[in-house]
């Protein structure tokens, strides 16, 4: 669920949008340095992966189900720069093709999900990984922790935008409580799924997991 048009005023959208553009430009430079030979296909396929994995339903209870958001997962799997670009592209395509998320609110959605979601997630991942012994299960646990925090962090980004430029009339405190509590719950699901997915990749092709190789390594293109 992305922010639609007219939900946050245009001034706030423009300001946050500019911040998002700057951060994405920085990620482009970072990705170019990190991805050897500018491997656009790889980042493109990561974007498809994120898009597809969001369609994978995880049954919760009584016929309801949830899905992965994938920001932290992508950051751990392909590194934060490529993840930012992948999520950015997913959000642009969703807004322009599927009318999911307002066109004038695109900057807000980009900021919350492709910047905050990915980078806060990656930061948490690095911190937790550092605190744990150096092995595969630590990487998966750190990824789970990153997934857990990245969801309410992105929601907090929304609440901040709401506080500054809401056109809605719910109290900010109400929105804060509702958003953060629901997203903490969603975060638990995100944590479990991220943990399990990273474990699955580590079990089969650990060489592909960016967060396992350590960020000094470049993505290897064979």
């Amino acid at each position, binding site marked *: 669920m992305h922010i*639609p048009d007219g*939900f946050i005023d245009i001034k706030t959208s423009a300001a946050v949008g500019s911040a998002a553009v700057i951060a994405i430009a920085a990620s482009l430079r970072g990705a*170019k340095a990190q991805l050897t030979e500018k491997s656009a296909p790889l980042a493109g396929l990561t974007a498809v992966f994120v898009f597809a994995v969001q369609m994978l339903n995880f049954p919760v209870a009584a016929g309801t189900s949830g899905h992965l958001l994938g920001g932290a997962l992508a950051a751990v799997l392909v590194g934060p720069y490529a993840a930012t670009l992948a999520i950015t592209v997913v959000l642009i395509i969703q807004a322009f*093709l599927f009318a999911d998320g307002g*066109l004038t609110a695109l900057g807000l959605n980009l900021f919350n999900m492709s910047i905050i979601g990915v980078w806060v997630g990656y930061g948490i991942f690095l911190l937790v990984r550092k605190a744990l012994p150096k092995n595969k299960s630590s990487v998966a646990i750190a990824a789970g922790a990153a997934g857990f925090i990245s969801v309410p962090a992105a929601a907090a980004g929304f609440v901040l935008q709401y506080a500054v430029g809401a056109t809605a009339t719910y109290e900010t405190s109400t929105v804060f409580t509702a958003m953060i509590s629901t997203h903490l719950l969603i975060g638990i699901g995100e944590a479990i799924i991220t943990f399990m997915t990273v474990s699955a990749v580590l079990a089969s092709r650990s060489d592909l997991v960016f967060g396992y190789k350590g960020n000094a390594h470049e993505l290897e293109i064979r």
Partner: protein
Amino acid sequence: MRESGEAAHGHHHGHDVGERLYIHRHSPLHDLPPHLKIVSLLTFLIICVATPIQNYWAFIGFAIVITTLLATAKLPVLTIAKRATIEIPFLVFAFLMPFFSKGERFEILFFEISRPGAIAALSIITKGTLGVLTAILLSGSTPAREILRGFELLKMPSLLVQIMTFMLRYMNVITDEMERMKVARLSRGFEERGIRDWKFIAGTAGALFVRSYERGERVHTSMIARGYTGELPKTEIPEINSSNKFLAVGIPLAALIITSVTGALL
């Protein structure tokens, strides 16, 4: 459904998602070069969203403009309605707002509701709907690949456009892959029951990543073998005729005139 009309590069890539969204018709909107269409519709939408809702007449004007455009583009009403269902969660959010907001209250039918809440709800519903309709107009009248070409002509960084190109091109391949994995799961006797089964679905997600990644590598090596150096061939700038210009300027200009005239009448 699609012939060769929009195959601007003269070759086909199978039926990707963008092509399924595109509705092939002959209309001035379909003929509008993509970069002009993107800028024109975005400017139109920004003007709509920036107009305060209290300027009620303006929104009747905007609604007339977008409806006329959708009709001109000959997009089927049912398809538009189906795609617009994406905004339902926000409609619910907005509908509840008058009941749970502070401020001056008034009675309507049997309910006492908040006036600022009701006005804000109206604003969110109206602007959200205008936004969704504008996006549907764009993706319905422009093949996805043309939208990306529009981005390229608008000087979006090439790497970003390339990533998008690959995303669209492989979207179906990967979602088909996911479907096959689901079939495989079912044939192994898998049954979805609840949280206990997450492990297996996460296994699918992991395998999907490995397959996507490996495909990315494979595509990349083949491209290098065919002489890829990090840049895709530049597309030529489409010719712009005077009716294109008229339409591209006309759409946002109409919104601007509507908002200033009705604003002055307030």
